């Protein structure tokens, strides 16, 4: 199963590298939203809860773009039939799509977080990084698990572009709460927040629950 998933993932990454469709769009989107926040809030520098809120909301909205493009190639070019005809475990397909989304999000954050620090963040980013990186990774994991599920769930609907954000955003609300709360003291310049363990715990609980659910129900999607 891992081998199949790796093959599908390689195919997805090859397509992404050649077409450069999702990740550049997501990156451009985040930078644009940072500029929007600058004008919308009329602030030159953000810190604390405002900063972590702006950062996480932007990342989640960018993730919506990634999620709605996740099955796009297959849908538009009919590749999905090939994938479904092949004797491939559906779970492998989910794993590949989740891994692709995870990697896209990591690449996005490599650009978006420094851009955020450059454009909007008041306090210095560097001392916050040792804690911020695990928080980002845990959030990416949850987003990837739920994003791949939502993408497959919406793939067969008529109003696909509409369903993805409506479905994904409420589902990631606990993720937003825990990630933003974990990040908030870091962006205020407090490097050893006391509640961090609690929020990381909730974030990991969310990851585990949604990975399990996605694995359990994905088999019922996309088969015909």
């Amino acid at each position, binding site marked *: 199963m891992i081998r199949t998933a790796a093959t599908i993932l390689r195919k997805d990454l090859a397509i992404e590298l050649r077409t450069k469709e999702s990740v550049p769009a997501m990156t451009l989107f985040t930078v644009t939203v940072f500029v929007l926040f600058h004008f919308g809030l009329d602030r030159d520098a953000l810190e604390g809860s405002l900063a972590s809120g702006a950062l996480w909301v932007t990342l989640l909205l960018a993730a919506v773009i990634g999620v709605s493009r996740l099955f796009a190639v297959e849908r538009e070019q009919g590749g999905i039939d090939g994938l479904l005809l092949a004797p491939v475990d559906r779970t492998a397909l989910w794993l590949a799509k989740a891994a692709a989304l995870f990697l896209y999000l990591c690449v996005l954050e490599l650009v978006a977080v420094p851009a955020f620090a450059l454009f909007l963040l008041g306090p210095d980013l560097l001392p916050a990084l040792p804690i911020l990186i695990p928080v980002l990774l845990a959030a990416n994991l949850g987003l990837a698990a739920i994003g791949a599920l939502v993408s497959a769930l919406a793939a067969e609907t008529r109003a696909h572009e509409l369903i993805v954000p409506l479905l994904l955003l409420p589902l990631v609300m606990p993720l937003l709460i825990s990630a933003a709360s974990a990040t908030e003291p870091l962006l205020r310049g407090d490097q050893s927040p006391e509640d961090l363990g609690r929020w990381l715990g909730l974030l990991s609980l969310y990851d585990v629950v949604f990975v399990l659910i996605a694995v359990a*129900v994905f088999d019922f999607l996309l088969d015909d």
Partner: protein
Amino acid sequence: MYSKGLKPLSIATVVLMAASLALVFFYAPNDADQGFVQKIFYVHVPLAIVALCGFVAGGIMAIGYLRSGDRAWDARSYVAIHMSIIFGVAVLITGAIWAKAAWGHWWVWDEPVLVSFLVVFLLYCVYYPLRFSIEDPDRQARYSSVFAIAAGAFVPINFAAVRMAEAFTHPRVLSQTGGSMPGDMRLTFLVSIIAVTLLFVTLWKLELTGKHASMQLKRLRRRLEAEATA
């Protein structure tokens, strides 16, 4: 098939609803701090509990569909979620009224239960566009079931998250140990919650009966048309 026992059930619902309203207005004492307005608690809290249980029950029925492939389970899950959404609207309205009376604002963000209920409600509202934008009936049932299961599991985790995020300020008439309510209030509350549960079950059965009947009618009409043309 679903209409069996609907009549006694409806009678029981009406009797208990009347009993619970009578208890609320004439038996339960006015709350010491909040006075008369606190009585909305006997409507708001049972509705909220029943709506949330209905959402989770919809998820469990969806598991029944995925395991058995029997479309009746999908119909049950759909109607349970549908009813819970209607109850959910009532929860949000009564909650807002209570919030206005107790805290002076229609909406209070630092109130974890209200906020998590809103998030759950928003998520379940997507059930309709998702379900009705899939035409193939089998696929519709399958995708809706997957949604119902994922969302059903989301309900408790969301409550945990929001509760952790906010200060604990809900008017806790029912404290966490459940021991702080005086006996007459507790009796009224119990009767109300049973009455609302019965109301939910009755409406659920009624809706299922209606759906079943209209489907049967469609089938018969189709057969009649086929015979007429033959």
